[in-house]
């Protein structure tokens, strides 16, 4: 039943429960689609037997299974999966097979989900184009009209975005440190939500920048993201920043009626150099939310322009500290043939890390070093407090914020070589990350070249529901049904 791969998670779940098809049929359809899409390089490991085993359980216990019974998912390679290679896109973790399972994937398994495989990503989630992966870039299923130039699916959750867009996974996990769910979701014409910091446990997720890292859901529809996120989230005593709160029933509470809601439009997000099409889509988004009953209000987030430089101090600082664990002793790569322990560390890390990861470790080490700590790191944490304060004030006069997701559509592989230019991809995504807020990208339309553009909704702390509801209102009005033409 090849057409099973065209259905949403909600449709698969309901059809499976109604007995229209078996979980095995779903798993087999997806396993076949995954095996036939190798040219996208979206998966680094395929686990068809895992998907089949979960399907078998689902078929045996039909009617009593969890919310994702019978649904096979793609898992970003940042999540530790027991007995299955977990590389974080890095050479230094090549061959690493965790002896434990991350809390988020364990939660998904508890809900009945199976795993189709591990999804390619930028090395240690550091990148916006998937080009920093040691295992080669993911190729987006989308192409510009009349062109066969390979495009990036965005990053760092590029494998996840490409897999969902190409219908080789009904949904996928992602992680977002500074836009790594939302920017690829926008590039690939799918939905992606990052919840409030602390909703999803970080336990068993390879750490990049611990004060920013947050797992989230990527799917074809807003509803699918709500279903997945509900299964992923929840208090975990093993993560000291996990929020000890019940998980709301996000799916059951979905409503696109926004009467009485105010949508904040931050004037500082009208920045130079953004294509007119993106600003036009933003204006269209305002109209759609008005149509759903909401009232637009202009808001000010005065420290917006400082968010990216703040991020590029804090994230590398935390990364340099987190990545100190890759020492060639406990797991992963070890370079032999050097004499001393110190030389072994340095040789292993030189061979195991890619250029962008080294660059960020170097920046992070510098800004944390004696004599510079206050000037860079403490200063950035002060500006971060101001950015947080901006949002706190803004949410006194609005319920949700609407912006574009990214300042461009997907670009070609190899087109952006300057690190700073690459960092600018996350100009709209990073402020919400620094403030720990829930945020989502939802497809809005296509640009003149036929590539997807996303709209970005930012909610107040713990108000994922508002983000989902506003996204749903846009989804219903945008009528985004465009699909990449199959070439792979």
């Amino acid at each position, binding site marked *: 039943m090849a057409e099973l791969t065209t259905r949403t998670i909600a449709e698969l779940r309901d059809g499976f429960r109604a007995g229209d098809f078996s979980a095995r049929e779903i798993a087999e359809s997806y396993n076949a689609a995954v095996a036939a899409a190798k040219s996208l390089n979206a998966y680094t490991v395929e686990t068809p037997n895992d998907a089949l085993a979960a399907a078998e359980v689902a078929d045996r216990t039909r009617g009593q299974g969890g919310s994702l019974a019978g649904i096979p998912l793609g898992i970003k390679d940042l999540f530790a999966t027991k007995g299955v290679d977990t590389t974080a896109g890095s050479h230094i973790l090549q*061959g*690493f*097979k*965790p*002896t*434990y399972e991350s809390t988020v994937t364990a939660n998904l398994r508890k809900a009945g989900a199976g795993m189709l495989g591990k999804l390619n990503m930028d090395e240690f989630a550091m990148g916006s184009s998937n080009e920093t992966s040691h295992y080669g870039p993911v190729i987006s299923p989308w192409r510009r009209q009349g062109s066969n130039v390979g495009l990036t699916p965005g990053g760092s959750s590029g494998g996840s975005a490409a897999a969902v867009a190409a219908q080789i996974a009904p949904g996928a996990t992602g992680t977002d440190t500074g836009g790594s769910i939302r920017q690829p979701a926008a590039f690939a014409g799918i939905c992606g939500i990052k919840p409030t*910091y*602390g909703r999803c446990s970080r336990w068993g997720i390879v750490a990049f920048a611990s004060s*920013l890292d947050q797992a989230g859901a990527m799917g074809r529809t807003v509803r699918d993201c709500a279903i997945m996120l509900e299964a992923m989230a929840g208090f975990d005593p093993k993560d*000291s*920043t996990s*929020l*000890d709160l019940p998980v709301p029933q996000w799916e059951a509470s979905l409503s696109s009626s926004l009467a009485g809601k105010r949508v904040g439009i931050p004037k500082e997000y009208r920045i130079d150099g953004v294509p007119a099409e993106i600003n036009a889509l933003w204006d269209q988004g305002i109209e759609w939310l008005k149509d759903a009953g909401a009232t637009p209000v202009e808001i000010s987030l005065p420290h917006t322009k*400082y968010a990216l*430089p*703040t991020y*590029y*101090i804090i994230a590398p600082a935390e990364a*340099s500290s987190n990545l100190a664990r890759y*020492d*060639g*002793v*406990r*797991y*992963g*790569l*070890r370079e032999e043939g050097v004499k*001393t*322990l*110190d*030389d*072994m*560390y*340095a040789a292993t*890390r*030189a061979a195991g*890390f890619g250029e962008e990861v*080294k*660059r960020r470790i*170097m*920046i992070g*080490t*510098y800004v944390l*070093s004696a004599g510079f700590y206050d*000037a*860079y790191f403490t200063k*950035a*944490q*002060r*500006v*971060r*407090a*101001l950015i*947080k304060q901006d949002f706190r004030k803004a949410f006194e006069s609005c319920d949700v914020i609407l912006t574009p997701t990214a300042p461009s559509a997907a670009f070609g592989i190899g087109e952006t070589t300057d*690190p*700073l230019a690459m960092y600018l991809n996350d100009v709209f995504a990073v402020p919400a990350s*620094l*403030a*720990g807020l829930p945020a989502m990208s939802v497809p809005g339309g296509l640009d003149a070249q036929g590539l997807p553009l996303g709209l970005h909704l930012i909610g107040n*702390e713990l108000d994922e529901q508002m983000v989902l509801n506003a996204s749903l209102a846009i989804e219903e009005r945008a009528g985004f049904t465009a699909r990449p033409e199959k070439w792979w």
Partner: protein
Amino acid sequence: MSVTNDQVRHIAKLARIAMSDEELERLLPELNNILGWVEQLGEVNTDGIEPLTAVIDQKLRLREDAITDGDVRDDVLANAPDAQHGFFAVPKVIE
């Protein structure tokens, strides 16, 4: 503030990443570009602003002082490049 070649060499040493002269040479302008760009934070008046420590306000939890995990030596060693006699093995550090 820009960094010098010697400083980059020192940072690489602190970060335990072996780098050739050519790599250091290439990294120098890249790091200076990024550091020059982040320096715009100097424009922001942060007098009297406490550095942010927790992005979502919450108390650090205390847990019962009880053993909840352990006895997994072989699991811990399973991915070691060199495990011997139940330990991680490293190049000789004492002559």
